[in-house]
């Protein structure tokens, strides 16, 4: 049976992901439980205006999927940002307040995005008490017009959404969810993420009921795909996500993170992060597919570096700038006039890698 072969392949990926973690999990240090893992601000489009967005990564025990024998996602080591000790509700709140200091002098409109390297709505990770403290704090800040909360679909439950909506009033709210791919085969086999597209759609629908939007994170180039496989899958996923009702699509070009399966393949010369040309291609497509009904954003990590999405090295900066510009303005003209000799190589990679199965580096 074919299903059996696929299941065995899946198991292999799971084990390989687990193995790639190596000792990195055990060696995670206990961090200061009162400081977030990371926090940064960027310019962002908030509603129709441009304002400041604060992204907070709370230091928690991290993603349950990655900590388990399931191995976690093939490209993700965000859980390493977390701590080995699960912080208390007070400590989590302190982390939040620490990050909020960055907005002290900022003026409206503001956006606050809360990530945890796991799920903000997971009670095991963020106890009800901490969640309530944080959301209440936000509701008291009139400058904050937009809130983004990260979660996997299984934690998106009706009562929790109801509570979130009631605490945050009429602010714009989005759930942030790593859909990665709308293909269940690619999501499970290449990403090793174990939910299906149907669960994503349920979460979107549940969100709609409470006027909560969906920010879908879409992965560009998980392992075991050719550059063109990856490009086409990201485009299809974007269409599917928008059709399902996503309010924002955020494109994540894979970057090579430590202690991941992707890094293992990359070191063996069997993986190359996506070309920036692919990112541009997907964003242009997404812009067309969104027809103004959904935002299209992309903030590529390690862009232009060899572990991140990159081109030849000569054109990377201008293309990354264009990507940032587009994310901010939603104006696809940001991509006009981009040109470099390496575009021919990229084009060649799309066709030749596809048929030869040699990873083009």
């Amino acid at each position, binding site marked *: *049976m*074919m299903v059996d*072969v*696929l299941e*065995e*392949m899946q198991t*292999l*990926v799971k*084990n*390989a992901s687990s*193995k790639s973690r190596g000792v990195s999990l055990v060696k995670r240090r206990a961090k200061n439980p009162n400081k977030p893992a990371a926090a940064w601000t960027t310019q962002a489009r908030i509603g129709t205006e441009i304002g400041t967005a604060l992204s907070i990564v709370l230091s928690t025990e991290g993603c349950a999927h990655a900590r388990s024998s399931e191995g976690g996602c093939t490209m993700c080591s965000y859980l390493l940002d977390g701590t080995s000790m699960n912080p208390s509700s007070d400590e989590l709140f302190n982390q939040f307040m620490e990050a909020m200091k960055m907005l002290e002098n900022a003026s409206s409109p503001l956006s606050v995005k809360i990530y945890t390297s796991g799920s903000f709505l997971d009670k095991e990770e963020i106890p009800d008490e901490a969640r309530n403290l944080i959301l209440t704090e936000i509701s008291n800040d009139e400058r904050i017009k937009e809130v983004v909360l990260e979660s996997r679909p299984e934690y998106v439950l009706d009562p929790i959404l109801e509570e979130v909506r009631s605490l945050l009033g009429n602010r714009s709210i989005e759930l942030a969810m790593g859909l990665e791919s709308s*293909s269940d*085969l690619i999501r499970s*086999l290449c990403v090793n993420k174990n939910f299906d597209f149907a669960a994503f759609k349920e979460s979107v629908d549940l969100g709609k009921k409470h006027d909560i939007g969906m920010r879908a994170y879409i992965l560009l180039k998980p*392992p*075991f*795909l*050719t550059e*063109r*496989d990856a490009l*086409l899958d990201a485009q299809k996923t974007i269409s599917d996500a928008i059709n399902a009702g996503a309010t924002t699509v955020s494109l994540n070009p894979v970057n090579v993170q430590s202690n991941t399966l992707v890094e*293992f*393949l990359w070191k*063996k*010369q*069997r*993986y190359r992060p996506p070309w920036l040309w692919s990112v541009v291609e997907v964003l242009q497509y997404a812009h067309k597919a969104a027809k103004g009904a959904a935002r299209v954003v992309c903030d590529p990590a390690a862009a232009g570096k060899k572990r991140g999405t990159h081109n030849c090295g000569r054109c990377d900066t201008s293309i990354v700038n264009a990507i940032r510009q587009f994310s901010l303005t939603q104006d696809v003209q940001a991509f006009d006039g981009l040109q470099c*000799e*390496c575009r*021919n*190589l990229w084009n*060649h990679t799309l*066709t*030749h*890698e*596809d*048929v*030869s*199965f*040699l*990873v*083009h580096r």
Partner: protein
Amino acid sequence: MEMKRMTEFRVGRGHDGPARIGEYIIGEEVFQTPLLTGPDSIRKSILQIRYMGRDLTLPNPGIVAIPFNMTPDEFSNVALGDSDPILLPSLVSFASLDNPASTLLLRYQLEMVEKSKGTIDPSRLILRVPENIDVEDFKSIIDEFHTKGIRSAAFVFDGLLGSTDLKSITLRSTLPASWLTFALGKIHPSIIPLLYYTGFDIIDTGYAYQAAASGVRLWSNDSEQIESGKLPRYCSCLACKIIDEKYSSEHIQALHNHNLNIYSSILSESLHAMKSGRLRWLVESMTHVSPNHAALLRQVDKQTYPFIEEFTPTTGADVVPLIGPESYNSPAVRRYREYLESRYTPPTGKQIVLLLPCSAKKPYSDSKSHRRFLETIGSALGRAAERVAQAILTSPLGVVPRELERVFPAANYDIPVTGDWDSEETELGAQALITYLNKFDANCTVVAHVSGGYLGIVKGAESQVSQSIIYTTPESSASSWDSRQVLHETLTDLKGVLDLKGSQPKQLEEIVRSTADFQFGLGAGELLVPENAKLGGKPYRQIVCRIEKEQICSFIASSGSISLTLSGAKLLAPLNRYWARLDATQVKGGSIFAVGISEADSEIRPGDEVIVLNNDDEVIAVGKSEMSGREMCELNRGRAISIRHKLEV
């Protein structure tokens, strides 16, 4: 109702190593192999390779790659109105995971084959071999694909000429002879002779564009970065007329065209070399492109020798150049050394073994130096010269007994002569000499009439042989007048000391018997030249062997081989070697095709003298093989044996 579309690969005539020519039939169209393939190709001579639904589909046939997760319905859509070969789906890089990742990819493909049953003829499906799969794992699953009718496979090359590329060649060597093989990936023109030599029929030119887009012009032995202000290499090809160093799409196109010309040119050169028996030489000459090229060939020789040897003809070009260390273990050379070890028995009655240096002219007897050696031996010993076994020391063959000096490649090889030997040559020579001398009685006396590098061989062997060795002229050239005087004196002395007796000249018998053993295996000489045989003729032309006026066989000096008559074949048949069984009572026409052969001796190589048997084990013909014994069994087409004599009914 759709016509049933299929593809077929027909192996043609000729071999030089596993390299072959053939016809790849796709629907109505016939492509000659070896052949180039590539994406987005506009050249008719290059078979297009494309991804279903992603690349422009040209009206001419092409290889089609399909998505990994294709459903059976989608799969059958591919089949409609189409005869294009299909690359079975796989996942890139997945084989890098632990076992059994590669096997799973193959099992997945097996199931796709199963799913497509009834909609797609399996002859159209191409197995995609996961890179670096364990050879034993691969062998254990390949039969299943064969049983299901798959007849072609694609292998990946990363162009580093390291372990992955070596593995792909090794994996290819395990396939049935009837399979068509693709080499895909990064393939520099300089590696094409080796790929063709190791049996790849269709070769990817994708790198031609990749190089062009990076401003690189490819040559058969080099890569040239085109830079402004730097004078480009002269090129006579049309494409290069418009190379102007400025980056533009025309510039890339010109470079691409040039690069493709180089691919076509080197493939054509390889094909011609194959036809003239010089492919091995071409492959060896390319080892100087880079140390990696040399390392890869050495590894290929070491790891796939049985495969390469199996398809290496036992006859060949008039001149076989053996130039560097890459030749020491070329299959014809190594096979010679191994046959000498396993198939050679010294003639009886020898009391002296005389070791002589080789000569540039072949066969040695035709050279000035050897004519003088022979004179010296004759004048010193007279008819007692029959008691002397002569052996010529040489690199890289090792030892050539006088009786075998006309066999291939002993009569054909040509080496650069400097008088200096490297340690590997000396070691190979010493080993061969030990093997050779151990075939003689311990009471024999060895006379080493050699100096310089040859002396190193004898010294290297001395401690491991049981005979005592007399050195005639260690300090000066063996062919000088003075040295020959010493040889004369030594032999004269020995004649007295050993009380050497004269005997009937046995040179013809020794040549025919030794050659028969060398050609057919131990025991053949005695079967073909029994005590009552009569031999006539000249060693340098032809020796005919008769028993009671019936011709048995003849030794042809120009090829150094034995031709059998039907009577000879009957005498030889009990040896149970070099036979092929024809599934018919008699032979019709001048050749036998592989399709008619039900069984054949796996020892048969292209160029061998072969006995044709019928199902009752009766000899019905003799002829010359055009392919290896395994191919005779595995191929359904192609000329297997060119008949020399057949039973007239």
